């Protein structure tokens, strides 16, 4: 990997991390309403995978969608404004954390329904194929979502139609309060690929290099018409399921262990430092820029107006006024 790539990865991971930590803080300060799920600890996944995509490629996301949006290139200002419910937000305040989308960069939306985005990605890939425009699609979803019928139906359909789509299961070991092995009948979700005759890959989700390498295979396969892949990335949800989660269902030590020895950003820094790939000055500069960027995003959000109540009646149908 060249320096540019490494710096880009680092910046993306840090942008997600700082964004999320700031959202956490602002939520707890009562500035952000709604239900908010943080992507902290999973930054390497969205970063590596979206780095393999063009702006015109599609992704679909989940309730835990900030990281995917940032990695796909969304504007933090408009994201933060959306979280704050302001009219300058991506959805003019109509969506909030669980419904951020940016259609101009192929980000087809976070989704409040677990497994709800999987088939939207399948359809976007079908469009790519029928329109022959070279676009591929990636669907991000969790271990919990891999037990939904949409997972099964969507992958089967993509497999028989050889659609250019990659199913990325972020196995962060928890779905809300439930340990994945208590709800998912297999240890490696990737083995489910065999039910559809497609490749099932496993990556260390907290190692941006490994995710990149495995995803690269899947992306190449999709681009050359080889059809879908299922990529399981093993990661860990270090925060509560949502901000405010009392987390009575797991041991504190389990989380500490992950924070200490498996943080994707720490691991990245360790490696690039050990291997002398990036200097600490380079990293620090990124840090500073990211902190500044997030600060600006917060200020933008805070200083943006709430939507006027009349805007509630816009955007339902293409023609305004029709109900």
């Amino acid at each position, binding site marked *: 990997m060249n320096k540019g790539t490494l710096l880009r990865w680092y910046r993306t991971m840090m942008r997600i991390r700082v964004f999320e930590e700031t959202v956490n803080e602002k939520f707890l300060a009562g500035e952000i309403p709604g239900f908010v799920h943080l992507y902290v600890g999973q930054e390497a996944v969205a970063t590596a995978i979206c780095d393999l995509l063009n702006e015109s490629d599609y992704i679909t996301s989940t309730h835990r969608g900030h990281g995917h949006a940032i990695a796909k290139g969304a504007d933090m200002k408009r994201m933060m404004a959306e979280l704050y419910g302001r009219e300058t937000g*991506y959805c003019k305040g*109509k969506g909030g954390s669980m419904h951020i989308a940016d259609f101009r960069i192929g980000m087809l939306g976070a989704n409040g329904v677990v497994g*709800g985005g999987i*088939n939207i990605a399948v359809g976007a890939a079908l*469009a790519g194929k029928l*329109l022959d425009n070279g676009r591929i699609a990636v669907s991000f979803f969790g271990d919990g979502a891999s037990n939904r019928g949409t997972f099964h139906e*969507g992958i089967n*359909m993509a497999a028989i139609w050889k659609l250019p789509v990659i199913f990325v299961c972020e196995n962060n070991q928890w779905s809300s309060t439930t340990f994945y092995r208590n709800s998912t009948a297999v240890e490696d979700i990737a083995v489910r690929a065999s039910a559809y005759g497609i490749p099932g890959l496993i990556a260390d989700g907290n190692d941006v290099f490994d995710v990149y390498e495995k995803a690269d295979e899947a992306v190449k396969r999709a681009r050359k018409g080889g059809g879908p892949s299922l990529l399981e990335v093993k990661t860990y949800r270090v925060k509560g399921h949502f901000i405010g989660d009392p987390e009575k269902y797991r041991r504190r030590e389990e989380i500490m262990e992950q924070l200490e020895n498996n943080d994707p950003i720490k691991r990245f820094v360790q490696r690039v430092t050990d291997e002398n790939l990036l200097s600490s000055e380079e990293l620090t500069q990124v840090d500073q820029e990211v902190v500044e960027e997030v600060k600006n995003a917060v200020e933008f959000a805070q200083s943006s107006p709430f939507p006027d109540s009349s805007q509630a009646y816009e955007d339902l149908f293409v023609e305004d006024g029709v109900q």
Partner: protein
Amino acid sequence: MREVTFAEATLEAMREEMARDSRVFIMGEDIASQGGIFGQFKGLADQFGLERVRDTPISETAIVGAGIGAALGGLIPVIDMHFADFLGVAMDEVLNQMSKIRYMFGGQANLPLVLRAPDGVTRSGAAQHSQSLEAIFMHIPGTKIVAPSNAEDAKGLLKAAIRDPNPVIYFEHKDLFRRKGQVPDGEHITPIGKARVTREGDSLTVVSYSRMFTEVEAACQQLGDEVEGKVELIDLRTIVPMDVETILASVRKTHRLLIVHEAVKRGGVGAEISAVVAEKAVEYLDAPIVRIGAKPYPIPFSPPLEREIVPQVDEIISAIRGLLNARI
């Protein structure tokens, strides 16, 4: 004008729209090789190929979900639900994705997509193959709903639905497919959102749609002079957005209202129509608002039971007679 069946009319619409716009494609179960259970897809695969006339697995959540994704990706999907009853299988996709995407994302994307849903009672289909479910979807903001009663509107509304940049559910009654009707030559579009007054009268407004509209017509025919000039008959055609003006104008003239649909009466489209009139024109009413719809039971299999649960011409006739004589 030419006489064609309702099924052929929908085929004309598909052929014309698929020829006009290469983004239009259709997918569903068992539509390509045999042309659909009701012949409504005959020849489409030959003409447009299997990429644009796609047989799918039995995976309704994937079909509708992928339809949504395809629309966001620049296509115009027409999706066959096989039977309207199976809309339940893809309900989350309709309720939480299709109907909400444009609004909840702040108008960022259009979602041109048509769900074709063959509904209603035919050939003793029993509880899971006979339902009329439009009222359920009327209650969900974000989707237009149409329900033609004849070949002309079947063609015109399907073309309008395909051209509409919003999601549209197109309910086509299974028992209407083989019925013949006149269809105008050349380009023919029925605007979404406009009801049609097919018979004028001064004493009773009857609102209906889909197959039941033809039953109301049959009732009026049987009543002959009794209703001539008295019954004003409205074919609603579009359920959402509803042509409330046409209904209100008629009721303000006739002072009486009967609503007839095949769907269950309780919580049906008739309840909404009645409520709108009771809100906006109650002072014009000279009689109770009467609704005819299926009784609140699943549709039973055996013909005498089915006839009991589903509205029949007789019931319509006596409701019309009763209302023409009613006064409060």
